């Protein structure tokens, strides 16, 4: 995040200027930005993450839809400029409601306005925090032997020990996890374990997995918010901690892992801020279904479609993922983290996780 809003204003003015200049030159106005789809992400060797490629799309006023998008863009940059001027910020949802007053430029759904905000990030190489926009979703929960110093709203610095100073629901990650908001004072753990479901997070908390295996438990709450991913990225980088990801065994969970390890398609323009390339997938894998004889559900038609789509996703092209996805398609089954309870409540912490962690060399036994 920048403190220099002058720079941000210059950048968003450029968006309006492009359109204005087109009109003045009697050209049909358009804005160009990278295609934000699976087909246009490339691995960036330097950054070690997946970024948008060279394919571009044009939003042109030649078509009605394109013209609407341009008009909305004009409204949005104007709104952002205004917020910077009056030193306010708004949530994405608030902006969506504010667009109600934009006459026929208003959005039809919040998804539309969220996407356009992301587009603007891509076009201006700013982050939405620069635009004074913030998500309404809160970050996820954290428990483990680390000390975080947080700048509170009263401008006091407060140290929080993520075991001793928090209840069983843990420390809650704020939406802003940049250095001016939080810093990591100490981290006496061996690795970070990111967990998809709240049920499994609570199981690990109850079984004291954070203590017994010197780990930091992070609850992802499904598809992780930007702040959760940024939190993992910063902590892992600054304290040199390995990251393992523990999810359900279905195509959607693999995307959760990809967004942490490789960068998500939607946010590929800021992958280097959000992704932790060294993250490892722990499970549950399709092989685990067979090896641990787990209870399963049948793959739905959407699941199969999604798995097939992943087979053509450039991020899943290594042999581990190809083999696992093909195996799952062959099995026609999916499973959940909590299916491990088939063997008792302690099985996951006493047997499954130690075995898997040993397998990838995270712990030695």
């Amino acid at each position, binding site marked *: 995040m920048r403190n220099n809003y002058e720079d941000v204003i210059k950048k968003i003015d450029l968006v309006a*200027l492009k359109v*204005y200049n087109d009109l003045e030159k009697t050209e049909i106005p358009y804005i160009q930005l990278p295609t934000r789809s699976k087909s246009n992400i490339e691995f960036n060797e330097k950054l070690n993450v997946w970024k948008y490629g060279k394919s571009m799309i044009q939003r042109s006023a030649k078509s009605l839809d394109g013209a609407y998008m341009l008009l909305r863009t004009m409204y949005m940059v104007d709104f952002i400029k205004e917020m910077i001027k009056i030193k306010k910020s708004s949530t994405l949802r608030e902006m969506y409601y504010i667009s109600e007053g934009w006459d026929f430029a208003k959005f039809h759904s919040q998804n539309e306005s969220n996407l356009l905000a992301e587009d603007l990030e891509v076009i201006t190489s700013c982050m939405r925090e620069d635009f004074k926009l913030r998500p309404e979703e809160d970050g996820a929960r954290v428990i483990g032997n680390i000390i975080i110093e947080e700048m509170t709203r009263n401008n006091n610095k407060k140290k929080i020990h993520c075991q001793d100073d928090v209840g069983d629901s843990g420390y809650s990650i704020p939406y802003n996890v940049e250095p001016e908001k939080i810093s990591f004072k100490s981290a006496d753990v061996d690795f970070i374990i990111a967990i998809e479901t709240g049920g499994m997070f609570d199981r690990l908390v109850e079984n004291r997995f954070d203590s017994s295996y010197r780990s930091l438990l992070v609850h992802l709450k499904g598809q992780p918010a930007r702040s959760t991913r940024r939190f993992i990225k910063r902590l892992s980088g600054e304290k040199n901690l390995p990251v393992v990801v523990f999810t359900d065994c279905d195509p959607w969970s693999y995307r959760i892992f990809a967004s942490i390890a490789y960068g998500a398609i939607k946010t590929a323009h800021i992958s280097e801020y959000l992704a932790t390339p060294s993250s490892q997938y722990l499970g549950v894998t399709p092989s685990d279904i067979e090896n641990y004889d787990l209870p399963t559900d049948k793959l739905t038609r959407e699941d199969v479609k999604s798995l097939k789509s992943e087979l053509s996703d450039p991020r899943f092209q290594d042999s581990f993922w190809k083999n696992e996805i093909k195996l799952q398609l062959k099995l026609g089954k999916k499973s959940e983290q909590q299916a491990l309870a088939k063997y008792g409540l302690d099985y996951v912490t006493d047997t499954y996780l130690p075995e898997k962690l040993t397998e990838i060399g995270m712990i030695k036994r």
Partner: protein
Amino acid sequence: MNKITAHDLAKKQKEISVAEFFERNKHILGFGNQTRALVTSVKEGVDNCLDACEEVNILPEIYVEINNHEDGECKLIIEDNGPGIVKSQIKHIFGRLLYGSRFHSVRQSRGQQGIGISAVVLYGQLTTGKHAKVISKIQEDRPAVIMELAIDTNKNRAEIISRDIIHWEKPSGTRIEVSIIADYKRGKRFVYEYLQSTSIVNPHAQITFKEPDGTKHFFERTSELLPRRSVEIKPHPYGVELGTLIKIAKQTNSRKLSAFLKNEFTSMGDRTANAVCEKAQLEKHLNPKDMTREQFLSLHKAFKKVKIMAPPTDCLSPIGETLIKRSLKHETKEISPEFIVTASRPPSAYTGSPFQVEVGLVYGGNIPTDANVKIMRFANRVPLLYQQGGCVITSAISSIDWRRYGLDQKSGKGMPSGPAIFLVHVSSTLIPFTSESKEAIADIPEIENEIKLALRICARKVQHHIHKKVKREKTREKFELITRILPEIAKKSSKMLNKPLPSLDSVITKIMDVVWIEDLIEYEKISKKDVEKPVQTTLIDNSLKQHGDGTITKSKIIVINYKRTSQKLNLYVLIPKEAIVGTVNPKPSKINYNFIKWNLDAIPSSGKIDINFELAGLKEGDFDENDIYIENINPTYVIGADKWEGE
């Protein structure tokens, strides 16, 4: 033991009364069940009314009332404003089966349909035992006659039960009241449908229907013009049967075969008559009255071997496209259809009988989209309500692939489904029905072909409309883009940057890059006094008829050149045949019965041309859409008009 003699048999034969004849044949006469009986009774009555009025050039006003009694007895009242019936004829018309004047005449008439009103009287008498009541008035200053009639079923004669004179408000007319056993609950829908359909193909008639609960339905008159009177023609040799041929020969005044052929048949000249005689190997001086059965047989066979001209077609009385459209529009008002198209074929002939096909198609609006299309079949202006499946009209519709025209149809064959109502009217001097019940037209290839041709014309028009709708939608989008969004983009960006508003004209031409044509139609009512010249139309009657309707249709067409360069084009607008063209601005390069044409030279970029023209002789809504065509310009440059394909 008594020996039965021929005399005894004769007595018995006589006793096979009309009642028995009726009982045996009631299914083919349309009285097969209590639902049918109700519809047939209404139908016979109303057909009589229409015929009677048209006979003397009175615009029909028909009143139908049904009173339903608990016990299944219905009292049917049908009344018209026709010429009335002279006292002495009343008992014959209402009390004698198969009594009528048009048994052997060759002309288009409703009377071919059913057995007559007397069958209704008989049916009523047989089922309820009650007598029919007839009121008739033939002259304004004279009282009406009221008669109660019964049919003597042995003699096939009417018995007058009572007779009196009464005062009746009407200047003239006929009213009949019959009690019949009928199923009103079930028949009601059909009666309504029959009256509505009748009103559609008889736009000159006004029909009022009063239901037992007092509900009144009005089927309004939409045309003040009586249909052209169908002309009686002589039989055509191709269509005549051997028996009829012999009968005509017995009655002829001609003494020579060649003269007989020329005088008694249509389409027979000297050459054809001689050719027929030659083929039949008959002496042309032969007296037809002396001819043997064998000679008639070879004459009859010879007819088929000689090429004879098609029969004249002026004996037909089609409804006309404008009136079909107007009627359909009127009757489908509640479902507010998207559009109505019509097509009419020139007269044609099958085995010596002239016929003509007209088709109308109502599309869209609130017509259900998931049901089969509705088919309205008509023969000589009479609705056909039953046996739809066995009718050539149905098979013609089923044989066309309607999927290209916005309708659903499994594998492109069979009954289409979707938001459409089909109207098919076949007029002929002899409708070839599949059976005596006269509810379905037989599968005659010539007729099927003509129906298909007419349907295809309609289908093309439907496609044109759908095409136009899509184009319109695009036009609307473009319009929205350049008039609302683009100026707003300019406003917003200049405001943010504190810069002056840029001019948008050139950008707009770049975005549009078309010649854009839009149109508007308005109607102006004017009182008759204001009409300087009485409007003339040749619509129905052969003679010019004065017809000051008092509506001027005003059409405006706007042509805007959104191309970057100057454009020129020729523009055509189709106009109905019946329309009289009034003021036209700018000056057209051509006007004929079918279109107005303008040569638009050099419309500059961003330039606009307004075209205005007025049409008289039409009712409001008859001309509700400009069919615009263009030539001498790349049609892809133009939105709002199609390429002119020639006349």
